[in-house]
C-alpha cells in the first residue's frame, strides 16, 4: 500500500524540502497529522509507511490547485436543491487528489490510499459552520472520479484542537474543544492553549516528534466527532485494502 497525502502546511500534513510540488522520502518533512496517520497504519496494516522508500507521497496545496485549474472535467454541479454552497474548493481538491492516486496506483501497481487534510475553520476557510457539508464535498470529490480509497481529515475547527485534546487528562468527553474559535488571534485559541501546555511555542517538527508517542491511547480523541469521523473512515479504507474480504458486508 502507498499513501498520497495533501494538506495546508508544515503544522498539519507536512511540507516538501525541495520547493517541489510533489515529494517523498527525505525530501518530505512530515507534520504531526502525517505522524498520527502512519501510526494508525502501523497498527492496522503492520508496517511503517514512512520507513518504506516512496511509500508516502506528498502533493502540495499549490500543485493540487494547478491540477484543478487545468482540469477540463466538470466541476461540482451548480447550486440547487440539497446542494450546499462553499464546498467547491474541497470537492475540486479531492477530485484531483483522487485522480493522482488512481494514476499512482495504476503506474506502481499497488493500492493507494489518499488522505486530504483541511482545517474546517481556519482564518483562511471561514465560514466554518459547515463541517458536514465540507466533509461530504470531500468524499464527493473522491467519488466523482470513482476513487473509493479517499479519506478526508477535517478537524473542527483545526488540527491544533486535535493536538490540544491529546494533551488533556480525563476520560470524559472533550467535544467542547470543537467549539474553540478557529481564529489564532482570539485570546483562548487552540494554538495559544497548546503553547501554554508546552510552556513555549512548538515548531512543526517539535510537534511531529511529540506525536510519535502521543497520545498513548486514542480514547480522548475519539470523543471529538471530527476526529471520530476521520478515524472511522480511515479504518474502513485501510481494512478494505489490507483484508478486502473482511470489509465486505
Amino acid at each position, binding site marked *: 500500500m502507498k499513501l498520497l497525502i495533501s494538506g495546508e502546511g508544515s503544522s498539519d500534513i507536512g511540507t516538501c524540502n525541495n520547493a517541489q510540488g510533489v515529494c517523498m522520502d527525505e525530501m518530505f518533512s512530515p507534520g504531526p497529522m502525517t505522524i498520527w496517520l502512519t501510526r494508525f497504519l502501523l497498527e492496522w496494516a503492520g508496517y511503517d509507511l514512512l520507513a518504506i522508500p516512496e511509500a508516502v507521497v506528498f502533493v502540495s496545496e499549490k500543485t493540487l490547485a494547478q491540477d484543478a485549474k487545468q482540469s477540463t472535467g466538470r*466541476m461540482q454541479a451548480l447550486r440547487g436543491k440539497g446542494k450546499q454552497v462553499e464546498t*467547491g*474548493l474541497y470537492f475540486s*481538491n479531492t477530485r484531483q487528489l483522487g485522480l493522482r492516486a488512481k494514476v499512482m496506483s495504476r503506474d506502481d501497481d499497488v493500492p493507494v490510499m489518499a488522505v486530504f487534510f483541511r482545517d474546517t475553520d481556519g482564518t*483562511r*476557510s*471561514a465560514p466554518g459552520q459547515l463541517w458536514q457539508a465540507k466533509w461530504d464535498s470531500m468524499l464527493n470529490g473522491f467519488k466523482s472520479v470513482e476513487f473509493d480509497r479517499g479519506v478526508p481529515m477535517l478537524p473542527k475547527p483545526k488540527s491544533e484542537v486535535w493536538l490540544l485534546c491529546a494533551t488533556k487528562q480525563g476520560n470524559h468527553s472533550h467535544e467542547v474543544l470543537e467549539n474553540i474559535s478557529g481564529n489564532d488571534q482570539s485570546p483562548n485559541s487552540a494554538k495559544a492553549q497548546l503553547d501554554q501546555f508546552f510552556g513555549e511555542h512548538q515548531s512543526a517538527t517539535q510537534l511531529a516528534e511529540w506525536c510519535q508517542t502521543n497520545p498513548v491511547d486514542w480514547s480522548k480523541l475519539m470523543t471529538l466527532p471530527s476526529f471520530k469521523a476521520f478515524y472511522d473512515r480511515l479504518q474502513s479504507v485501510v481494512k478494505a485494502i489490507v483484508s478486502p474480504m473482511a470489509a465486505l458486508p
Partner: protein
Amino acid sequence: MIKSIRIINFKSLGDVTLRLDKFNCLIGMNGAGKSSVLQAIDFMSQLMLGDVSGWLAQRGWSIGDLNCKVRKESNITFHVNFQTSTGEILTWTGAFNRTLMRCSMEVIVDQAALKQTDKYFYSDGKAFSIDGKVGQAIAFTFQGSLLSVLKDSELPENVFEFRNALRQIRSLELLSPHLLRKSARSSDHDIGTGGEKLSAYLDNIKGKRKEALIVLLKRFYPTLTDFNVVSQRSGWKKLSVIEIFGDQYLETEASHMNDGLLRILAVLTQADSDRSLILLDEIENGINQEIVETLVETLLASHQQMLVTTHSPLILNYLEDDLAREAVQFIYKTPKGESRIRPFFGIPRIDDKLRVMGPGDAFVDTDLKSLTQECIELDQQTDPTTQAKTASGDGK
C-alpha cells in the same frame, strides 16, 4: 480614463470608493447598492451637464431621494480621479448642495502637484478661478458643477478633457425591452437610460458605422442581415430587423423582436459610440447562454471604459483570472444600511477558490450572506475608530 470615484452621502452609498479599470464588474446581493453605484456615476455625469432637475424628473425622483438616510449631512460629497490622455491624474473634489441644486464648492487639482495652491479650477460657490488666475464672481445661476456652464475656450485643455469625459458617461442601467421597442421621434439623437429612442438613434447610424454594427450583430445572431429604420408621419421612426432563413428574408418589427436582440443592439450601439464610460445593469438579462461569451468579448474589446453589474456566474467565467482579480468588485451592505465595496478576489479565501476554479464557479460556490458578514468583520479590523475603541478597552 476615470481611475476612481469616491462618493459620500448618495442613497445607500454612505462613503464608498470604487476603483475603476477599463472593464469593471460589480457583484452583490439584491439591494446591496449595485444600481446606486451606477446612479451615482450617472449623477456625477449630470453635474457636468448641468440639468440636475431634468435628470431627477426623468427618473421620477425628488432631490430628497438623493442623500443617504443613515447620515446626518445634507451635501453630497465626491472625489473623482481621472487620468488624462497625457497621463496626468486630475482630482475633482466637490460638495453638491441639495438645496441650491449645485456644487457649493469644487476644485480640480493635479494629484501630483506639490503645492495645494496649484489648482486648475476652484469655486467656493461665490467666486471661481481657473488655472490660478484672479477669481471672478459667480453672477449667474446654474445647476450641478460650475464647469457645466463655462465656455469650452475658458477651460485649460486637461480640465476640458475631464469635463467632456464625464459628460460622455452613458448609463443604460434602466434598459427595458418595453422602452427599446418604442418608436421615437427624429429629433431624438441619443438613446435614453432605459433604451428609449433606440430607433431614432439607429437612424443616425449610416455608412461604415452601420456596416460595422451589423458585422458585430451577426456575431450574436448569424441570421441577421440588416436593420431598417422607417420614417413615419410626424417624424416617428420605426425599427425593424431583417433576417435570412434559407433563401427567404424575414423582416421583424421592433415590437415583435426578442428582448435579447434589442438589448444587444442597444449595448452595441453604445460600445461603438464616443462614450467615455458605459454603465450597464445586469448585462445577462434576456440573453441566452450561447452568446454570453461573445457579449463578454465584445465588452472587453470595446475602446470605452465599462462598468457592468451581474448576477451571472457565466459572465464571470468568461473573464481571465487576472482580469477578474482586478475587475470584479463585491458590494455589500452593513447592518447600518450603508453600502461598501471590496475587490471580490482580494478576499483571501475567495482568491483560494480562484486558484482551483473559474471566477464564476468561485462566485456561485460562495455564500454571499456569509461573505457580507466576513467583509463587515474585516472592515472592523481595519477601521481606525474601531481599533481605537478596542485598544482603549484592552487598556482597562
